[in-house]
């Protein structure tokens, strides 16, 4: 449906280069990247609010790069909702609807339908400033959906909300996408949000699009170490010399069952590394004697960094295991993981 072809933009010191992406009809596409990387700029380029310095925007094959925003039929929802403070919720929702006297009953009906869809019917007569953040975002969504957009543009729509509201609205977004079959382009800095929502996810790092793939695929096959790092994958290691299912990394041999000739990196998930006081016999093919370097709490778990020779690995363990193993820097322990637990890409 929508094609971005080699979009580039330069605003002051900030630059975005050669972004090409296609969004299909009805698709939920998430653009993921750290803040300040130009995700919102890209969104405003799609909306027609900023003209790119290079590249073209095509809608169904037609070049719309120069089309003003009001003629594109894409509505944009901002992180801070951008509701009109001088209008009631009903007038906010109806803002984009036809205003001819004859069209008014239809507009009123449409506003009521959308309020129903987003569970904000009781709020229709109120002013935006009297609403909670979550309610405001629902109104902003209803207002954006009122114009029956071909593409709904969401700029960090959940970032300003508290955790519970965020989870609830996340589900609503997916439901709206499915029920109305409206294509969505959603911009976020939160990998978790991207994974939960996106049919496909594009990763924008260092001002360029690194990878576009389905969420599961991203974890299975990140295109490069930066992507892996941004997704929070610890223990991503570059592969050196390889001997039949064994790779030599930093002087240590690691058994990898899925190793192929194309493998450039391996990823050992921190939660699949078992730490123990003594070596134990098991089907796990990799077991090393290591030294604890440091540890840090990570939510309800603990991240323990261990070193085996020059190889440095992070293992995630529970508080119970931590107490039991009496972890402290300098302590000798064993790290064990299965050869099948090592992911290659």
């Amino acid at each position: 449906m929508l094609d971005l072809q080699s979009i580039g933009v330069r605003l002051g010191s900030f630059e975005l280069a050669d972004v090409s992406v296609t969004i299909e009809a009805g698709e939920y596409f998430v653009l993921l990247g750290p803040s300040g990387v130009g995700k919102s700029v890209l969104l405003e380029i799609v909306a027609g609010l900023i003209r790119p310095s290079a590249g073209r925007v095509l809608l169904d094959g037609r070049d719309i790069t120069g089309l003003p925003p009001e003629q594109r039929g894409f509505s944009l929802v901002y992180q801070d909702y951008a509701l009109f403070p001088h209008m009631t919720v009903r007038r906010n929702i109806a803002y984009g609807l036809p205003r001819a006297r004859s069209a008014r009953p239809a507009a009123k009906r449409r506003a009521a339908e959308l309020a129903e869809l987003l569970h904000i019917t009781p709020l229709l007569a109120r002013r935006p400033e009297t609403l909670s953040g979550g309610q405001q975002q629902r109104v902003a969504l209803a207002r954006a959906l009122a114009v029956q957009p071909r593409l709904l543009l969401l700029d960090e729509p959940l970032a300003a909300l508290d955790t519970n509201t965020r989870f609830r609205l996340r589900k609503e977004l997916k439901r709206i996408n499915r029920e109305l079959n409206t294509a969505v382009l959603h911009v976020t800095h939160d990998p978790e949000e991207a994974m939960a929502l996106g049919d496909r996810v594009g990763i924008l790092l260092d001002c360029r699009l690194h990878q576009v793939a389905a969420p599961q695929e991203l974890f299975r096959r990140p295109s490069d170490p930066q992507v892996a790092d941004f997704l929070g994958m610890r223990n991503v290691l570059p592969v050196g010399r390889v001997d039949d299912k064994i790779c030599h990394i930093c002087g240590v041999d690691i058994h990898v069952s899925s190793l192929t000739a194309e493998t450039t990196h391996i990823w050992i998930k921190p939660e699949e590394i078992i730490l123990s006081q003594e070596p134990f016999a098991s089907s796990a093919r990799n077991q090393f004697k290591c030294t604890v370097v440091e540890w840090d709490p990570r939510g309800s778990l603990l991240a323990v960094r261990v070193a085996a020779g020059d190889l440095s690995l992070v293992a995630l363990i529970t508080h119970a295991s931590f107490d039991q193993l009496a972890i402290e820097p300098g302590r000798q322990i064993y790290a064990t993981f299965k050869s099948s637990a090592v992911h290659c890409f």
Partner: protein
Amino acid sequence: MTRQSLQPSGSGTWFGLLLALLGSAVLLLIVAPLLGIVLATSVSDLSRAAADREVTESIKLTLLAALAATTVSAVAGVPLAYLLARKRFWGKGLVLGIIDLPIVIPHSAAGIALLTVIGRQSPLGKHVLGGGLVGTTAGIAVAMAFVSIPFLVNAARLAFMAVPERLERAARTLGASPARVFLTVSLPLAWRGVLSGMVLMWARGISEFGAVVIIAYHPMTTPVMVFQRFNDHGLRYAVSVAVLLIAVCVTLFVVLRLLSGARDRRGDHA
């Protein structure tokens, strides 16, 4: 965020006292003459001036001429303010500078400058305006507009800048044309600031003396009348007219304060 910043003993020190003393000196400079003029006038003088048809006619003339100047200027000045608040263009700094020029140009010189354009001898005055605008209400309004338009444009510009641009951008993506966005989003939200700019311009127009006295000694606006009575009849006859005029201006000013009150209160915490 509302935050009280009671600094324990910080305001009770010699430093706080010094600040308060110096500040009082400034207030005295402003308040003393106003108190002085009120004390110098008697109720009978004042009521005689208020009953004087020459005085009331001149107050009416002054109010109306300034109102006309403000209304006509707003039609062109408010869109210009919006343009300056929103767009970036080559030469914008120059335009901003030109708008502020009338504030620093001495008003008597401004009056002379206006004479060269709308005076009897000027090409425009001779051929287009049928003998120039000297000595006409229209001429007075032009002089008022020249010296007071920066106040309107700047107030309106700040009001538009305070409207989040995202609201306008969101409206555009909802299918609204730039003109519709201006009329339904930007102007309603900036209205309070625009209106207080208009009141300020009105007040400045009413109080204008230097440019007006050169363009039109007659019909006589009230500031000119204050000067004329002082020259022709002496201080006592000027005082009562001056008090009336000050009362009109201060009333307008209080209205202005109430209008822009919300914004000022916000500013104090920034």
